[in-house]
């Protein structure tokens, strides 16, 4: 039994109401991630104990899903919509331009200072705003839709984010 730390006790309290063998792993992992921004190794162990699963099983499940993070998130995430309506509006050009501004080779990378990350996003049917990105601040549970982009506008926004300015464009939405 690992040493009981304060962090561990907090985690234990956080997931105390989940029961084993009842289809509650997804909910437990979501709750941990909502609270801490990611699912730490320690959290995986606590969830496993609570649900009477092997930690390897919990890790295996958690790592299967794109939206469960096993590392702390960047403070700002640019989520580029990869859906078809966006693709038809130069979505690929917008992606490549934003990656270039941030010095990334591909999606899924983050800046050296760990501040900014750019990831692949999935269509949620707000295609009237295509092409669009979501700018998220995971620790604040904030998400803005920045849509009807041009490549030039995408470059301006990315430079603002890179330079630490808050962007005033876009619309607040549910996180």
């Amino acid at each position, binding site marked *: 039994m690992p040493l009981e730390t304060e962090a561990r006790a907090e985690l234990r309290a956080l997931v105390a109401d989940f029961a084993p063998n009842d289809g509650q792993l997804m909910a437990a992992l979501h709750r941990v991630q909502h609270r801490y921004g990611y699912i730490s190794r320690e959290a995986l162990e606590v969830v496993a104990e609570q649900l009477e699963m092997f930690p390897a099983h919990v890790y295996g499940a958690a790592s299967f899903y794109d939206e469960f993070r096993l590392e702390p998130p960047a403070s700002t995430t640019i989520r580029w919509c990869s859906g078809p309506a966006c693709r*038809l509006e130069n979505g690929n*050009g917008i992606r490549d331009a934003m990656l270039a501004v941030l010095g990334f080779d591909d999606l899924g990378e983050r800046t050296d200072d760990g501040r900014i990350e750019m990831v692949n996003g999935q269509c949620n049917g707000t295609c009237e705003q295509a092409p669009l990105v979501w700018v998220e601040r995971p620790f604040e549970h904030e998400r803005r839709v920045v849509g009807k982009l041009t490549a030039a506008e995408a470059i301006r926004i990315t430079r603002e984010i890179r330079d630490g300015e808050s962007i005033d464009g876009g619309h607040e939405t549910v996180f």
Partner: protein
Amino acid sequence: MVNRLMGGMKLSSDTAQIQGNFSQIREDATTVYERWRKPQRPRIDVAIDTSSLANGALATSNAIEQIANDRNAAIDLGQNHGYGMQWLQPLVTVTWPNGTSVIYGPVNPDDAALIVDEATGRSGAASALAIGVLSGEHTEIPSIREHPFFAQEPEQRRLIARIGLTDPEVMEHYIGSGGWAAFARVLYRGMQPDGVRQELIDGAHGGRGGGGFPAGVKWNFLAGAPGDEHYMVCNADEGDPGAWVNRVVMEGDPHLLIEGMAIAAFATSSKRGFIYIREEYPLAVERMEQAIRHAEAAGLLGDNILGSEFSFQLEVVKGAGSYVCGEETGLLSSIQGQRGQPRIRPPFPAAVGVFMKPSNVNNVETFSHVPLILQNGHEWYREYGTEAMVGTRLFSFSGDIPNTGFMELPFGAPMQEILSACGGVSDGAELKAIHSGGPLGSLVPASAMPTLTLENNSFTPYDAMMGSGGIVFVSDRTHLVILNEFISEFVEEESCGRCTTCHGGNQRMTEIFRRIMNGDGRRADAANLKLIDDMLQQSNCVHGQFSPKPMRNLLQHFREDYEELALQRRDPTLTLPGMTKFRVANPRDSKIEDAVAICPVNAFQGSVGARSINDDACIGCGACTEVAPGAIVREPKQLEAASMPVSAGS
């Protein structure tokens, strides 16, 4: 068989008591809802849904509230769900005490004062923003039903009849407008589970997930399964990019889905149910969870519903960004807390489902039609649709059209008329293709348009499928292969990883498409793509099996475009960076330095007045042509055509 099933499901003998319980709930709800429809003072409802939020509905709502407060206006504020015209979001509805409701849009924060003026009696103040009359009468504004976008909808909406007319977060609005009556009647009339299933079979109610399998027949499998631990599962993992019809039901009328699931549970002796919702729909998750809590508090879910002996526990499971969990057995694995890997069938879910117990999985819309069919009868349900596909369904339309949104359409509705309703193809371009059914769907050629209708049979001759509601219109402005590369990469990324055919095949397909897009197509590519197609069909589940279809459609229906791109190495659309060159045509253009400044890769060289573009640095994003359209032109890169193969297999 029936008797054995009835063993666990005896109804309260006191059906009068059940009816009395429901009457009380309905009476109270009706009062609430009537006050909502004919409010004491004017009310402004801002549409709050995923689409409206993306278009700034919160800012609009705040601005209206601010002005109403500043003026101490004698109005109330509320919310509803957008009516379907997503390109006109944020949508706002004003309802007057006489029951007349008018939809306005797009209402941006700057327009808030006009809306408040209009609501407080300065009639005509917001007339420039008026879209249509939702209910009641108005002398100057036509009915929303006459709006061209809805020309192909039935006269009256059915599945989404409440959209716009209720606050989806208020259960009383659902009940006060006829909700829960179907299920309550099942209970107090002492209907038997097999009778409920038969009504759906008589209505030929086909599943809405894409397959179209009759729901009542599917429920028979579960009803006949051994044991008394049955599960009813809703697949709300609507992951097809370009499809968002389930989102509309869950955000717009969440109790309809709950009632449908409760009836399904009754009809199959299920005591517990799950709604598996994709992570990308946080508002749908919130509204479904809230609706479940409200229904539980009213005694419409949980133990001994309405005092009967029937109990049903329902809960939401939130996914975490895995498309393959939309495959029903992957979804079952995910609910159980496993990796969302599709299982090998048989056994089918009706025998071995959640927690290895008999289960049934249906789509959101499949459940949501059920209360309507029971309420109105199967003959009513059959009034729309075709012989093969009965009823109406929701469709979402996007792509190269000005009018993005959703409609409730009868099966068999003509695609040409629908495209017209969507405003035709944007910017005077030509239609190239119709992308239906998501990544495991199809690319139908524009030449199909004159006869293409919204039913599976109409898509079949094109080796295509209609899918589960998402239709994307594709013009000739962008090269179609962009979608093929997107689709194969998507399927590869979202593969569960079990079958090498699936994750390896789609990876190989993506590589080939990328090479072709980069101006390096080969003569052997078409044959290799065919090989990948044959191999993918050996995958375990539909994710792999259906994934080669869009590629096959490209080779079948767009062969000339494919060969021009892969063999002649020409991209007539000039949208593929690997085959397009950007050139400074007018170095003295006044905007040229703006282009230099915006370039994300510093591809401009030379001094002011003598700028040129370094082709090796340019990534082809197009930003320079946006800011300096007169200075920079796109040209085809000069590429040699693909050479003939030296020997077989080269």
